[in-house]
């Protein structure tokens, strides 16, 4: 799984020193990198193959990593609302490699609290750009037909969010356990229209693997009205592709 079409500065290894000297501003904060790692992990959890069972070991390891980050973020109190009215394109370039995260969590680069933001995928158009309480963002490491919307957390209550988060991770494993597609109705009933939370996104994506790409649109369109045309088209193409495979087999 390679990142395509993504400009980023890589701070791995020996380039570190040069990076430090060349542009102090360019060194990403620990929080930012941690957020980036979290986004990446969530995307990985969602990208399950349509026809072949996902690797359970890999899923468990990624989920554990996500839990670890989430626990640390809860302790830090950085579990906050991410409000991105800022530019979409520029943020793509600023998805940096998370070199600092590779070192001990004790050596944090800066204590400064940088408001975390996520990146936009240029394929995705949000109808809700005007809506200030919610934003959609996409981890840009995803290939075009599989545009995923990673979520935005709204900080009402860290405990509650933790519970929701845990629930969503649990739902990943449940769907790995092959729950029946009827559970989608149950998932819908849990969705709170007031904010766009992890549950919906993750469960929508997971049920994806069983039901077909196009159904994910329903998951998104019901709580919010942000199904974009470009998403619809690419998902329909996938559906054709799947039908083709099924017909051939």
């Amino acid at each position, binding site marked *: *799984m*390679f*990142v395509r079409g993504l400009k980023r500065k*890589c701070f*791995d*290894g*020996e380039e570190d020193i040069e990076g430090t000297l060349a542009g102090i501003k360019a060194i990403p904060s620990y929080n930012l990198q*941690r957020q980036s*790692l979290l986004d*990446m992990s969530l995307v*990985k959890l969602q990208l399950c193959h349509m*026809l*072949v*069972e996902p*690797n*359970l*070991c*890999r899923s*468990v*390891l990624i*989920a*554990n*990593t996500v839990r*670890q*980050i989430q626990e640390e973020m809860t302790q830090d109190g950085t579990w906050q609302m991410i409000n991105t009215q800022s530019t979409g394109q520029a943020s793509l370039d600023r998805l940096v*490699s*998370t*070199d600092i*995260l*590779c*070192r*001990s*969590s004790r050596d944090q680069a800066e204590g400064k609290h940088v408001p975390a933001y996520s990146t936009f995928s240029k394929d995705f158009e949000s109808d809700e750009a005007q809506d200030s309480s919610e934003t959609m963002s996409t981890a840009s*490491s995803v290939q075009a037909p599989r545009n995923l919307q990673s979520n935005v957390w709204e900080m009402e209550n860290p405990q509650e969010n933790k519970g929701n988060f*845990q629930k969503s*991770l*649990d739902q990943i*494993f*449940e769907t*790995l*356990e*092959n729950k029946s597609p009827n559970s989608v109705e149950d998932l819908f009933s849990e969705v709170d229209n007031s904010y766009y939370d992890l549950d919906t996104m993750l469960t929508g994506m997971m049920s994806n693997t*069983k039901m077909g790409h196009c159904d994910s649109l329903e998951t998104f369109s019901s709580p919010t009205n942000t199904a974009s045309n470009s998403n619809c088209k690419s998902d329909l193409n996938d559906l054709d592709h799947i039908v083709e495979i099924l017909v051939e*087999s």
Partner: protein
Amino acid sequence: DIISTVEFNYTGDLLATGDKGGRVVIFQREQETKSRPLSRGEYNVYSTFQSHEPEFDYLKSLEIEEKINKIRWLPQQNAAHFLLSTNDKTIKLWKISERDKRAEGYNLKDEDGRLREPFRVTELRVPTLKPMDLMVEASPRRTFANAHTYHINSISVNSDYATYLSADDLRINLWHLEVTNRSFNIVDIKPANMEELTEVITAAEFHPHHCNVFVYSSSKGTIRLCDMRSSALCDQHSKFFEEPEDPSSRSFFSEIISSISDVKFSHSGRYMMTRDYLSVKVWDLNMENRPVETYQVHEYLRSKLCSLYENDCIFDKFECCWNGSDSTIMTGSYNNFFRTFERETHRDITLEASRESSKPRAILKPRKVCTTGKRKKDEITVDSLDFNKKILHTAWHPMENIIAVAATNNLYLFQEKVN
């Protein structure tokens, strides 16, 4: 096709490989002949057969890959050879036998097999055996199916030569080679609530001499040794091997890189070796709290873990193996590099399995990865390593210094230079 497993048989005369397309190819060692004195040591194709086919699980709407995950030979007991091969869900026992004679002169059949008219049979004769061109046949003898909900990652033949185990992500089953409709579950780590799942089984193996002992490794870097005499369900381990974590090197990737991808007992049965992402560890079975030896395979990747996580390379499962005398261990790395470590002398060497560096009969040149700023001649920098060229599967001849290295879809055989 991409090779997914490599295994020598007990004598080393046969080498089996399995690939992603479900095929098994068996190579046989050439016998030494006067006319070609150098031919000893060469392996040529002996048999090829399709072991597993892709299947579709209609209930779950999921494809079952035909990729061969593991091959294990059975000890030879008669003229035929037997091996177990497995994909994600089904294990098969294959018999490979030679046929170099055929019977001629049947009473009731013609030479081409058609039945003769009864009135044409005017005399009785005894069929005679005539030599024919050697034909190697592979036939499936047993199919052990429907016992695994999750993907099978290991099979291991017991030293009693009658039973074997198969392990998937959450369970280990014990089979008898003669019985296909029943298996016993001996380890089950599936939590009652799948939401609580945090650890999976990554590999399992029987002890080479004690038929009641086996080990299994986990994604959290632990190994459990179990004794089947203590209880029918071995959820309680007899020994628990885990190295305490070094707090100074803790990162978000600590758990992922500690996940054990392979576990192998030494031939002596006294030690076992585990492979995690960056290192190989040798454990004394009598000491549970830490390994007795640790070898860094590619420590220069530690600062690249983020990128390796992004491109999924951090989840690559490398295997490891012992040589016949347990004095040396071998494992693979990236850029088609593989490494051997001599335990007594602490010498290690990095070699490359590629067409350019492996002309037949040429001696392999040691390779070096440059970890400091200054790159010497012939060294390779970490950034120029090709992470698509990974050596996950290697095997060592049980008695001689001949090694088999699988580099994606090519198989390389190297042997110690004989003067």
